[in-house]
């Protein structure tokens, strides 16, 4: 199986005049293509920073990082990376459909046109067919995140980075979007890295769950849930194996803090 992301001895931080503040220290990570990896950890452990390094928004101090065998810069320019933020980051002056089409209107020579049929099918997939001409302020929080995900998926990226995308939503909406995200992942085969604070979300979504600790940010453990979750098997949140995995994660997090 090909490798989507490979990080070796990754150090990320800021250099001041007289000191270096480390955010991520000696991080090694390998994510196979097509995996759904959730990243769990306390605030300040560098979860979002890791996504930003992979997306070429931040440069590491040292170490190496590869995204589909190339540099993050290359992967970004080839439109292989989609990113979903905690707030939907929809442009308020653009309608739903115009927000989803944003990737085709920016990007210099990297941009290309998107067919109407593709937009239509994505609107259907995300349950946004009736909302295409609305503006962001006319949508609920859950609908806004659906649009943000549609925008990230419109160019069929090989890698989808999601930074606590459902963190600000109510629990029912969050559960529904989690289930929808899993079915999108199953149908597209996109590699997903999903940052969350929620243990249940991490365990329910991830094939593997990476638990991080802070000061400095590092990988504490990676729990493999592939045995209890087959890619095509829909597992219930109340399944005893999920409950037991959650308890393990909680203990790991408590030990780390």
């Amino acid at each position, binding site marked *: 199986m090909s490798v989507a992301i490979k990080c070796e001895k990754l150090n990320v931080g800021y250099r001041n005049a007289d000191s270096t503040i480390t955010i991520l220290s000696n991080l090694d990570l390998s994510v196979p293509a097509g995996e759904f990896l959730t990243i769990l950890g306390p605030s300040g452990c560098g979860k979002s920073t890791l996504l*930003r390094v992979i*997306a*070429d*928004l931040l440069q590491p101090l040292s170490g190496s990082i590869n995204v589909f065998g190339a540099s993050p810069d290359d992967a*970004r*320019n080839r*439109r292989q*990376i*989609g*990113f979903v*933020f905690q*707030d939907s*980051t929809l*442009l*308020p*002056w653009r309608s739903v459909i115009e927000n989803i089409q*944003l*990737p085709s*209107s*920016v*990007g*210099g020579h*990297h*941009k290309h046109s998107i067919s109407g049929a593709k937009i239509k099918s994505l609107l259907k997939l995300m349950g946004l067919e009736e909302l295409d001409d609305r*503006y*962001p*302020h006319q949508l609920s929080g859950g609908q806004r995140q659906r649009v943000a995900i549609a925008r990230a998926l419109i160019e069929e990226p090989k890698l989808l980075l999601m930074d606590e995308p459902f963190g600000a939503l109510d629990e029912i909406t969050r559960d529904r979007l989690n289930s929808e995200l899993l079915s999108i992942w199953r149908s597209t085969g996109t590699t997903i890295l999903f940052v969350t604070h929620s243990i249940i979300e991490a365990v329910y979504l991830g094939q593997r769950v990476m638990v991080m600790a802070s000061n400095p940010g590092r990988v504490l453990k990676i729990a493999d849930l592939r045995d209890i979750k087959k890619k095509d098997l829909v597992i219930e949140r109340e399944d005893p194996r999920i409950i037991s995995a959650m308890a393990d994660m909680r203990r790991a997090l408590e030990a780390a803090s």
Partner: protein
Amino acid sequence: MTEVPLSRNTALLLPILGGVSIIVAWEFLLPVLGVPAYIMPTPTAIAGVFVKQWPLLFSNLWPTAVESIAGFVIGNSVAILIAIVFVYSRIIQAAYFPVVLFFNTIPILALAPIIILIFGLGMTPKIIISAVICFFPTLVNMIRGLNSPSPNEIELFRILSANQWETFWRLRFPRSMPMLFSSLRIASTTAVIGAIVGEWIGSDKGIGALIIQATFNYRSGQLYAAIVLSSSMAICLFLLVAFVERKVIRYA
């Protein structure tokens, strides 16, 4: 205390009623209080001036309107262009923003004679004074507006490999619109004030000149009519800006 929101009709009606009540009080209280007409004429006397002297008022309205609109367009356009330069060059901003700030602290009444000395008595100095008065609020608001995209929005455009041109036209410029229109609303009324100040200092036509002539000749009715005319023009400009704003900013 919970405020009950006003219905649309009530919200429209209340300012009209407020204005009418003051005009009625003005009309009937002045004679009762014994205020002489040369100090404050009644609204009907002012209306009479409008009817009798409309050709004179209109011929003076025209130059002021041209100067105000030209000053508004030029002052705001220059402010927008300089704001763009400042936002894209921190060095130029650091070097020249204090100069602009110093320039703005000079009272317009002190600056106006200098501008008239340089450009003479035609329309040009009035347009420049009107432009100068519009310039600074728009510059400051436009700089803030162009810098107002959130860090996530900037990151989104970077992930999409947007170039500077695209980031400007698709993100920074539309983001700046609410702040730009706030200052354009203010500028729509100050542009008229700038033109009138210019006319006060050196002109024989325009509403400013009419105000000076009416004051020196004790023509109070004409003075008040000139004031009503300039205010009406400023309100028309304000409403025009508000109308364009509603067309441009369709969201929120």
